[in-house]
């Protein structure tokens, strides 16, 4: 329950950030650098005197949007692939499974970093690369479930009734797989968030003055040496809390719907 509340809060913060940040997240105020925690700056300021709470809130947008796009894209592609493979079976299924196994063996983060290095840092390249990398993870789980589902007698019953494969897949198979897909997406969301934060941390994601959480962790490093670790710590805590909250919700959902957590 608490985890679900945290998820909702984080999402609300991200959505409403432009209207509710106490300060302009990019407003530089050198006289106020490394300000202590006060009512005006509850989480302090960074080396340029920017309000850290405002920056975290603004950064929540890209920090959540990235993983969201990844799980939506990978979930759609992975499920489509999984259901098609399970439905047609035979050599097509064998080929898809083999392909997924090979892709699965290839670390997604490495792929995403490579793509970002080749196509340039930013938001799009890592997100697209990570979406591709997440397809096998989701597709493998969904294929196993789709195969089980497809072999249940009710599917044959529907075929005897004269319904087309399209109808059966769209109106029966997919809705029955939906709970598992939601669980997979919620788990994937946590992984994608960490991966994208890592890419930002490496400087291959969003660039300053954006306040993506991964980027904030990286940019806070010089300040740590100066004795002011708050920026890196606060951004890291934001990542950890969000990832844990989404993962806990995913596991609750899995228990509820009996979906397999890998």
């Amino acid at each position, binding site marked *: 329950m608490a985890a679900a509340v945290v998820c909702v809060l984080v999402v609300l913060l991200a959505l409403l950030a432009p209207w509710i940040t106490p300060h302009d997240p990019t407003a530089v105020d050198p006289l106020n650098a490394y300000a202590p925690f006060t009512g005006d700056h509850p989480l302090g300021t960074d080396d340029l005197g920017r309000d850290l709470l405002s920056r975290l809130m603004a950064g929540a947008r890209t920090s959540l949007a990235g993983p969201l796009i990844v799980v939506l894209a990978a979930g759609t592609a992975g499920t489509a692939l999984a259901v098609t493979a399970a439905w047609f079976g035979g050599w097509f299924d064998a080929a898809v499974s083999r392909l997924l196994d090979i892709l699965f063996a290839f670390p997604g983060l490495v792929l995403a970093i490579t793509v970002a290095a080749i196509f340039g840092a930013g938001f799009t390249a890592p997100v697209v690369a990570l979406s591709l990398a997440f397809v096998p993870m989701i597709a493998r789980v969904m294929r196993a479930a789709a195969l089980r589902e497809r072999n*249940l*007698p*009710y599917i*044959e*019953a*529907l*075929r*005897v*009734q*004269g*319904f087309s494969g399209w109808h059966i897949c769209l*109106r*029966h198979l997919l*809705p*029955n797989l939906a709970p598992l897909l939601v669980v997979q997406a919620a788990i994937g969301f946590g992984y994608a968030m960490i991966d994208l934060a890592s890419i930002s941390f490496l400087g291959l994601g969003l660039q300053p003055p954006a306040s993506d959480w991964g980027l904030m962790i990286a940019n806070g490093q010089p300040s740590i040496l100066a004795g002011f670790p708050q920026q890196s710590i606060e951004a890291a805590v934001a990542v950890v809390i969000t990832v844990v909250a989404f993962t806990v919700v995913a596991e609750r959902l899995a228990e509820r719907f009996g979906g397999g957590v890998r």
Partner: protein
Amino acid sequence: MLLEVRDLRKVFKGRFVAVDGVSFSVPTGGSLAVVGESGSGKTTCARIITGLEKATSGTVTIEGERRASTVQMVFQDPYQSLDRRQTVTSCLTEVLAHHTTLDRAGRAARSAELLNLVGLDERHGPALPRALSGGQRQRVAIARALAADPKLLVLDEAVAALDVSIQAQILNLLVDARAATGVAYLFITHDLSVVQHVCEDVVVMHRGRVVESGTVAEVLSAPSDPYTRKLIGSVPRPGWVPTREVNRVC
């Protein structure tokens, strides 16, 4: 004849002969039982007739064109043959939308009628399968099959998974439904004792072949094949006419 099965043969994996030259027929509105022990090829025949499996050789002809709506099937397992996410009403209206030209109101009315026919009522309409007992689920499966207005209903061990008292209810329901709709039955079972209640004719299958056929009365009272005799002997039940052999033992 409504259904004509001629020299049906099914070989699995190129060597295992599950059905070996089976022929039988079901007249329009008739009711044929297919009896035989486990593994005798009954389900395989049913799956070929309903188009779920291809025959290795032989023919299945059904009067008129071969449309799905002409043949419907009720499966053995009432717990798994319904979509667990679909309410009873939605299950029936889906079939009606596919097989009839009824409008929304017409479909609702017809599904209420079908529920009545199988001994359920409107209260069960919004229920999901998990809220229903095995017997109730099988009633839904029968209503769903009848929704397509089929000429032939294949029932593969349709009561085998149910308690004996529920079995009797479903068998009665089947008798009533046939009287009300004129649908023909291909009633598959390994249990000879349920046959006489529902069917007029019977074929006995053994190892993929038909070893005996005739009316139910003939076959039960004067079985000609030793396998049939064994089958009858193995299911002594109340209402059975004791054979002389049994009397002599007493």
